[in-house]
């Protein structure tokens, strides 16, 4: 019957040779104290923490060296006691190969601990615990390195009922979680209890692939009598992907646009919960992790390694690399990456170091054309159509790629693994994703720039209007004054004459308005002169200025005198001249506007 089922069944995922036995022959070993430790400040997803020490400082083991300044960041601690030798850019284990800021610590060999403060988590408020964990330096040790304290924060909105512990360890070669469970099952369970308490979850499920019988036995024994169960999942890569594991152990399929916590599920790696226990109950921050060293080395094994340990010292501990080793891979053979140099430090993300050699990982043959066999689609755990995505990515048809859910791709590599044409499919998807992100960013920037420009234009327009309005008000004030003083009807008559003939075409109206304006200006000038003469005051150097300005000046003078200031000396009489001209122009403009308005109204009424 099984044979018949297998005949028809196509199951997503792949089952590559496991290569786990090599590194599980020996127990976890501790590395001798390295000669120096290089601690990248960014060993996690998120922002760089703020450095608290300077070169030359003596630090104790577990002392905080850098503290997170915002939520999405993680602390860095001194893995041992010693002296800060440098704070500089060094090569870090990152696919980009770019250097990043690191603290270099020279151990003093004394291993003097900083004072540790353990917490009684049963009797400590949750908020206090989480606030404390913020400084623990704990990140997702499964490889994602997302700061753990964020995932433990319950902001009241999330209602996590199930905590899932990811112990699937589905990638070939990697055995650090397997060995951790075999040797530290009780610490893991204690960590789960703390995490479960913080999240308010009612139960925890530990998902382990069935190729780790010893770890399963150890965990089952340790969680007996507790609301924690072990769920044994079939060995099928990538069962360790968080969403895949959630479905495997709980049957829940997290919608693509939702977080697991929105569905009441939180996932932690098994090493992460152990670190939570050690921090909360023992006060030890994250200063080391278990690393699998395997591949082309003499004695593949797991080591408890201090963060910052230079890779060569770790390789030496594994008996050294065998001949023909070409380079090192961090992570597993499905999702890992080539280390840019041998001289990189071990970081929080380093779950596995594989010494690569041609006999282990043959160079892929040249890619053949896609024959649309859809083996990739059968293997895809997310049920995408990789052959279509490849086609779209290759032809830079990014919109189509997005339509076909490119961003649901978890880059697990199953498609590339099964491709008979040896097409590096995942690389195409990484390329397309980064292109789409870049395009989106550029578009966002362009949108922002356009918005900013629109705003600027609107502001200029508004300011222009405001200015015009202000001037108009002042001019109006001046005109009213002038009219009052001279009581000249000519202006009004002229304007009415110009505006009176509604049938005149626009040009005539404009002409009439112009004439009216000129007449008005002349009249105003005359009025000013007359007013001046009438007042009998000796003409000041502001003589051509109109009445309103003179009034203003008089007011200012009065104010100044009242506060005991001398009359200001107007240095530039031309200013007054210019002002008068301006005022005249504005008055003319107002007259024009009035004329036009009158004409328009006349037009309207005649229609």
């Amino acid at each position, binding site marked *: 019957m099984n044979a018949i089922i297998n*005949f*028809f069944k*196509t199951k997503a995922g*792949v089952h*590559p*040779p496991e290569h786990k036995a090599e590194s599980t022959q020996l127990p976890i070993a501790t590395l001798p104290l390295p000669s120096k430790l290089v601690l990248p400040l960014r060993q996690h997803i998120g922002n760089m923490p703020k450095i608290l020490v300077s070169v030359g400082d003596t630090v104790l083991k577990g002392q905080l060296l850098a503290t997170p300044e915002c939520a999405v960041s993680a602390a860095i601690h001194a893995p041992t006691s010693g002296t800060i030798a440098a704070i500089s850019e060094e090569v870090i284990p990152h*696919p980009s*190969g770019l250097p990043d800021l690191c603290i270099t610590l020279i151990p003093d060999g004394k291993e003097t601990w900083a004072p540790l403060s353990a917490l009684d988590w049963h009797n400590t408020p949750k908020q206090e615990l989480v606030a404390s964990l913020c400084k623990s330096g704990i990140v997702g040790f499964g490889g994602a390195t997302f700061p753990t304290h964020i995932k433990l924060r319950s902001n009241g909105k999330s209602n996590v009922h199930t905590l899932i512990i990811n112990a699937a360890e589905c990638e*070939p070669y990697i055995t650090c979680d397997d060995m951790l469970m075999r040797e530290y099952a009780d610490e893991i369970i204690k960590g789960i209890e703390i995490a479960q308490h913080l999240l308010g979850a009612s139960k925890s499920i530990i998902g382990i692939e069935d190729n780790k019988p010893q770890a399963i036995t150890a965990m089952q024994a340790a969680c007996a009598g507790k609301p924690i169960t072990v769920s044994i999942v079939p060995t099928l890569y990538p069962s360790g992907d968080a*969403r895949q594991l959630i479905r495997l152990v709980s049957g829940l*399929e*997290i*919608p*693509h*646009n*939702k977080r697991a916590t929105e569905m009441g599920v939180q996932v932690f790696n098994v090493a992460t919960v152990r670190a939570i226990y050690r921090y909360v109950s023992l006060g030890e921050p994250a200063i080391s992790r278990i690393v699998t060293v395997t591949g082309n080395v003499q004695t593949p094994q797991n080591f408890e390694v201090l963060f910052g340990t230079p890779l060569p010292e770790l390789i030496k501990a594994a008996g050294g690399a065998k001949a023909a080793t070409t380079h090192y*891979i961090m*992570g597993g*053979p*499905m*999702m*890992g*990456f*080539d280390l840019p140099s041998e001289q990189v430090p071990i970081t929080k993300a380093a779950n596995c170091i594989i010494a*690569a050699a041609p006999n282990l*990982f043959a160079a*892929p*043959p*040249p890619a*053949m*054309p*896609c*024959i*649309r*066999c*859809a083996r990739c*689609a*059968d293997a895809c*755990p*997310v*049920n*995408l*159509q990789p*052959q*279509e995505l490849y086609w779209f990515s290759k032809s830079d048809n990014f919109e189509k790629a997005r339509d*076909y*859910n490119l961003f*649901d791709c978890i880059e697990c*590599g199953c498609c*590339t*693994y*099964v*491709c*008979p*044409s*040896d097409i*590096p499919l*995942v*690389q195409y998807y*990484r390329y397309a994703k980064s292109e789409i992100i870049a395009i989106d960013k550029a578009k966002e920037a362009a949108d922002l720039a356009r918005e900013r420009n629109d705003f600027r234009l609107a502001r200029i327009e508004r300011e222009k209007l405001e200015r015009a309005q202000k001037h108009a008000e002042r001019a109006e004030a001046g005109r009213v004054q002038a009219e009052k003083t001279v009581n000249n009807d000519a202006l009004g008559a002229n304007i009415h004459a110009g505006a009176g003939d509604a049938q005149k075409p626009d040009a005539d109206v404009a002409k009439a308005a112009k004439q009216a304006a000129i007449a008005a200006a002349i009249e105003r000038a005359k009025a000013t002169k007359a007013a001046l003469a009438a007042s009998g005051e000796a003409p000041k150097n502001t003589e051509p200025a109109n009445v309103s300005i003179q009034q203003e000046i008089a007011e200012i003078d009065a104010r100044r005198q009242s506060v005991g200031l001398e009359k200001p000396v107007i240095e530039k009489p031309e200013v007054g001249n210019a002002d008068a001209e301006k005022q005249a122009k504005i008055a003319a403009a107002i007259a024009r506007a009035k004329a036009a308005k009158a004409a328009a109204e006349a037009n309207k009424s005649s229609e």
Partner: protein
Amino acid sequence: MNRSPYITDAPTVSTIMLKVLLALVPGIFAYAWIYGGGILVTITLATITALIAEAALLKIRQRPIKPHLMDLSAVVTAWLLALALPPLAPWWLVVIGVFFAIVIAKQLYGGLGYNPFNPAMVGYAVLLISFPLIMTRWPAPLALAGHPLGFMDQLHFIFSNVLPNDVKVDAITSATPLDYLKTQLKLNQEVAGITQAPMFGNFGAQGGEVVTGAYLLGGLYLIQQRIISWHLPTAFLAALASISLIFYAVNPAHFANPLFHLMSGASLLCAFFIITDPVSGPTTPRGKLYFAAGAGLLTYIIRVYGGYPDGVAFAVLLMNMCVPLIDTLTQPRVFGHEK
């Protein structure tokens, strides 16, 4: 640079094609046993033609020659076309058919992976339209032939169109059962009577059904090896059987029974080897079902109402045209997405 994954599983395009060829071997043996060793000559001729045409076109297109000859896809096309042709087809017919399949239908569209139509079926259709007489003139199985030809006689006939002195062409050839059924039905004969003719076997054609059975064997091997998915042959055969069953149930005097349709002509060759060509077929599981079912229905309709005795080639080509649409409409639900 991140270039993971670093590992890959064994099968390559070459191994896939090799397994397809291997799966054809039982059918070829059965063919040679029933119709004589001439088929081996035809297959050899087709293979050589295909490889030369492929190499020449790759050179003209400035593509690497060796890896593409090694992928064996041209050989698969050649074998499938050779098996679809009537035994003892003249050499030039084979050469023209293979030339069209490789040069026009495959390489001019961009070579392996880019041909929208099944190359072997394009070659077959071109020959069927251009040389209908030869293409429908099948030699009788050796057991039924008045003058069974020996291997050397067949070889001679293929290359020079000359038969031994005492043999006439009519003596060694006959219509195929599908063809015969069609013509006899037009003469108002009843199916039960027509199938009494010696060319009919237990299910399909006398002898031909043995070859068909051998194809079934090879096809099951391909499914077991996960070279082809079960969707295509199952849907094709189910559709063909269903529609013939409906017609047969309505009027058994005028329509042959489903088993006859399944075991006659190129039904099983098509089900396991023709519609399973991945390049010109759909990729989604549901799409495969629609594609194959469509091909099955069209095959029946062309057989019964069309101008040609067998409809496989045209059915497949017509369905090839629908592949982009089928693929677009049958995208499976992505993990975490609504239907």
